[in-house]
């Protein structure tokens, strides 16, 4: 693809993203758009840690939950403006990420996986049981929305869409920069071979802590966005299922690629809603069954996910054209 047509495609994509909620007036679909954008951030942040840096974190929901609870509680209890809360939530999650990074200095594979799950589960139990602060399993409700300015308000799906879009764009911009720089290459070196990375001077311990912190920041940020959008959060945000959601989206989209989690998050959010119509017809819940099956099929037969498949296809087409 030439540089010019690439730019054109970008412009078209941006225009479509901006116009989308006006093209679709159905509030439910607008809601799905917002949800999928929040998951784009959440899944991408997991992808930075696991896909790029190779650190197998199964406790990512902890960051999601910390961001959500922190921003919500700061607004409810201390009256911190939600716009600031979004970032404070991210920062608190980042601090937790730094902490969770410490075990990764010594553990890998299943050991790291269980330790990270443990971390998230402990926090979930805290959210369930510290009733005075979190209202326990009832969850926090009445979370203030993002305050409006310049005559804009951010309470409807339509307007929140633009907040989520801006957030996702900001996050993806950061991920793109981070992964294409010297930092990103060093992370990938760490993923590919730790002794090899050490041998060229990469301080793998400090890189692990750094990437845990950054990934957690964006995980927390996405959680805080969700809190001010739904305005109701529960300890379920910290459950293993949320992590698995990000994992499934990323793997199906394409682990270790920038577009993978974006494709995965949007596709799975809408696929599961598409299936809702099927469910209404047959009266059974098939969405998560499809998630699980797709995850297995992707790993067994489609390494690199949808993005990997697409690249192989377009590379194949390119070769055909050269030969023909």
């Amino acid at each position, binding site marked *: 693809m030439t540089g010019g047509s690439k730019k054109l495609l970008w412009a078209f994509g941006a225009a479509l993203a901006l116009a989308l909620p006006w093209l679709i007036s159905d509030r439910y679909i607008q809601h799905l758009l917002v949800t999928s954008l929040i998951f784009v951030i959440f899944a991408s942040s997991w992808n930075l840690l*696991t896909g790029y840096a*190779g650190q*197998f974190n199964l406790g990512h929901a902890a960051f999601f939950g910390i961001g959500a609870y922190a921003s919500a509680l700061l607004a409810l209890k201390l009256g911190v403006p939600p716009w600031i809360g979004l970032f404070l939530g991210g920062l608190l999650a980042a601090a937790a990420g730094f902490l969770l990074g410490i*075990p990764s200095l*010594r*553990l*890998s*594979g*299943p*050991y790291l*996986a*269980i*330790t990270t*799950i*443990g*971390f998230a*589960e*402990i926090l979930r*139990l805290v959210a*369930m*049981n510290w009733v005075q602060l979190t209202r326990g399993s009832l969850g926090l409700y009445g979370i203030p929305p993002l305050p409006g300015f310049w005559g804009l308000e951010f309470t409807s799906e339509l307007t929140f869409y633009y907040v989520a879009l801006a957030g996702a764009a900001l996050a993806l911009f950061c991920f793109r920069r981070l992964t294409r720089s010297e930092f990103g290459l060093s992370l990938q070196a760490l993923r590919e071979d730790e002794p090899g990375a050490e041998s060229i001077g990469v301080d793998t311990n400090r890189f692990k802590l750094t990437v845990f912190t950054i990934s957690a920041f964006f995980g927390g940020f996405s959680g805080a966005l969700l809190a001010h959008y739904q305005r109701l959060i529960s300890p379920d945000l910290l459950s*293993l299922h949320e992590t*698995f959601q990000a*994992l*499934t989206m990323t*793997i199906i989209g394409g682990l270790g690629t920038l577009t993978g989690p974006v494709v995965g998050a949007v596709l799975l959010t809408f696929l599961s809603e598409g299936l809702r119509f099927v469910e209404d017809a047959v009266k*059974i*819940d*098939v969405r*998560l*069954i499809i*998630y*699980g*099956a*797709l*995850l*297995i099929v992707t*790993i*067994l037969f489609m390494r690199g996910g949808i993005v990997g498949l697409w690249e192989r296809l377009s590379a194949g087409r390119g070769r055909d054209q050269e030969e023909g």
Partner: protein
Amino acid sequence: MESLFLQQVVNGLIVGSVYSLIAVGLTMIFGVMRISNFAHGDFSMVGAYIAVFLLAWVPGWMGWVGSLLAAAAGVGLLGILVERGVFRPLLTRWTDLDQIMVSIGLFILMENLAQLFFGATPRTLSDPFGGVTVNMGLVSTSAMRLLCFAMAMVIIIVLEVYLNRARMGVAIQATAQNRTAAQLMGININLIYAVTFALGSALAGLGGVLYGTLFAIYPTMGAIPTLKAFVVTILGGMGNIRGAIFSGFILGVAETLGGTYISMEYKHAIGFVIIILVLLIIPNGLFGRSEK
């Protein structure tokens, strides 16, 4: 006070025996095949549902014992299918990540298939003893729970004997210790893999029936036995069967005591706190060898 303490220790041992049973299956599969199966607890869930349906059909005693046999056979068979269809194709090329993620896919799939087939309503297994309690001086417990404990112990002992005496059992251990040498002895390791996975799954199924006897049964219950089994397995050193047996009891007792004397709410966190501490201090687990 003292009798409460003893009572909780007894309760812990009973729960711990079930943890041990489920974890032994997980640790065996890891030891021989290097698979960390996050769907392991869902095999227990299937075992528990087999008991639900069998007990509805044949109530009482016979049904309970029968459901142990049926769960072992049914879940063992399921294990063979899963090993063949999901894990075997990955055997030659997987990384830790691929393999764990495929098992997570299996976890999501099984949990939701169960929801589809069995409905979301929690079930319980009826007590064939009609709630008779046994009084043993300072402590008492229901006959049902005592039988659970006895069954778990019998199964563990039978397994130990099998692994240390039977030709196939010793071959399983040999393969876990050195795959290449095992092949050079004429051991068909693909067969060993199938047998190990079937056996490990059957243990999960048996554990599921006992677990279902002690706790409620519902489609998404599998996550808890999976996590407990991993805690126990890591505590005992991954792949170490005796380590898993002892650690199962340790976790069971630590949980009930922690639940009584520290906090009921955080009972399920105790295991995680223990392993995070253990992993940070002794990465090979309590019973792991210090080789690397």
